[in-house]
């Protein structure tokens, strides 16, 4: 609530600081945030910390159960898979593949999508209408289907998965940015800047972008959780990361045949995917909740 500063000891935090303080107060969101930081650290530092090389197979210890089982061995904390590779190292390396790749994917599509979205919001008339219809058509195709088609064109492989998912996320960012910029442009403070003589680019840079950053970040968290699931799904369908890469979805698929005798090869990667998506969703929910709390105050 804006008011004159009457009391000298009173502080008025900026909107960003208000957001951070309401985010901090929600315990669940902070838990998710710590988990997210943990995964990021894991993704960056995993080559340093893995106990064994994730692709090295040791034929003496095939299908060892996790350490808490009676047949397990504590030096292979989470057991091994059918080729004798340590599950813990594979999972940690998979963090940099599934989680780290999703982060990169979101950054790329954010950059391209926001650029195209804001440019398209500045156009009017028939051009804009055609572009919007085109965007609607692309958005109506399910993202996994689109990714599968692109992978079918380009061929399977991890880098092709990256491009495919980038191509499916860009329309979503364009859509969100386009709507947000259009909404801001119809507000009065932009009109005031225009009457001052500001060019569209300047208005975008100084007036509009600081106000739509939150919506874009919101879309980014949603996009990242979708990207993690899509990378894992493509890996599971053998269209993404190929073995011996230890991407979590591909690990899940390779554990399928021996599901009954070695269930840990299936449920451990699944739990990892669940954890990654859950923390991303918690961070996203926490941000949305903090924005709502800030609006109410």
């Amino acid at each position: 609530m804006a008011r004159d500063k009457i009391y000298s000891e009173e502080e008025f935090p900026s909107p960003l600081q208000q957001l951070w303080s309401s985010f901090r107060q929600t315990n669940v969101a902070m838990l998710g945030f710590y988990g997210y930081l943990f995964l990021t650290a894991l993704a960056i530092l995993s080559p340093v910390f893995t106990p064994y090389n994730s692709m090295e197979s040791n034929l003496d210890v095939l299908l060892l159960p996790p350490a808490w089982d009676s047949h397990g061995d504590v030096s292979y904390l989470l057991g091994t898979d059918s080729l004798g590779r340590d599950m813990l190292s594979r999972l940690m390396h998979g963090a940099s593949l599934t989680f780290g790749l999703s982060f990169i994917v979101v950054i790329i599509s954010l950059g391209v999508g926001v650029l195209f979205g804001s440019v398209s919001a500045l156009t009017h008339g028939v051009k804009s209408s055609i572009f919007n219809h085109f965007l609607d058509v692309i958005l109506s195709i399910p993202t996994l289907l689109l990714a599968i088609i692109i992978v079918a064109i380009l061929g399977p492989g991890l880098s092709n998965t990256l491009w495919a998912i980038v191509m499916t996320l860009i329309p979503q960012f364009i859509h969100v940015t386009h709507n947000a910029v259009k909404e801001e442009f119809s507000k009065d403070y932009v009109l005031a800047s225009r009457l001052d003589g500001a060019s569209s680019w300047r208005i975008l840079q100084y007036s509009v972008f600081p106000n739509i950053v939150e919506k874009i970040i919101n879309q980014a968290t949603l996009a990242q959780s979708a990207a993690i699931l899509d990378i894992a799904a493509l890996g599971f369908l053998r269209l993404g990361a190929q073995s011996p890469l230890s991407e979590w979805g591909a690990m899940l698929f390779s554990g399928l045949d021996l599901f009954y005798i070695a269930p840990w090869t299936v449920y451990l990667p699944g739990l990892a995917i669940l954890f990654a998506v859950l923390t991303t969703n918690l961070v996203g929910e926490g941000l949305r909740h903090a924005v709502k709390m800030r609006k109410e105050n």
Partner: protein
Amino acid sequence: MNLLDIRNLSIELKTKQGSILAVDRVSLTMKEGEVRGLVGESGSGKSILAQAITGILDDRWEVHADRFHWKNQDLLRLSPQERKSIIAKDIAMIFQEPIACLDPTTTVGEQLEEAVPNDQLTGYFWQKNKQRKLAVINLLHKVGIKNHDKCYRSFPHQLTEAFCQRVMIAIALARQPLLLIADEPTAAMESTNQGQIFRLLASLNQLKNMSILLISHDLENVTHWTNTITVMYSGQFVEAGTTEQIFNSPYHPYTKALLDSSPKANIELPPKSRLTTLPGSIPVLQHLPIGCRLGPRCPRAQQICVKAPKTTNYHGHQVNCHYSLKENY
């Protein structure tokens, strides 16, 4: 006989930072057939007071009172259910933006039919529908809507604000209430429509002997249409009395400032000079002054004003001030 008798009603809001006293010991009485105005700026707690009387505040608010009588029946001793049923039978309320107060997805006719209580309809099961329709047409005629057919079938967004306010009054009249609380009924309208609505309320008051509690911040309109006035400031009771008493001899500095700031009172001022106002603005809920809340702004405030003043009564003209302006009259 007093219809409504409220003594020292307080409404507290429980927040994480502590509890905020939004309404601080306000007293209000209403007689039968009386039109009372409740005047105050936005933020003075008048809407919250009205909502507390009709019982539609949610769990975050706590309501305490020394006395809360309706038709000499003590409502504080009853359970919330019983209180609600008594109030719903006799008290009705109309709100500020009438189009927003109607369901946008059902026709106006359906909403009116809902408001007609079941016990007003005599007759057998299959006759009830027809009787309901007749009752609705009757109500529409009472509020001055002649072509009821069109009104019956339209949706709220197809009608004007003044029209919808008449519909809201019709809904309120369906239960034949003894008290109608009008929470800023004309804030969203032009002055011609405002006059129409006020005339309608005045005629209802005269014909049906229905008491009206008119909540407004527009002092000129209120002084024209009411018998008695209660003034509130920042959740506290300031002054109450008949309209002539308040208009001709305001005892409280705040009431005097209110009357002085209207354009009519300032006609003698030279052109291009400032209108007379109190300096400052209404305090925020997080930083309420102790004692008399007008203290920081009042021109007559002394040290004793940090203690809340007691109400003094001069022949029915009540004022809540340590340094009232009584000696000027």
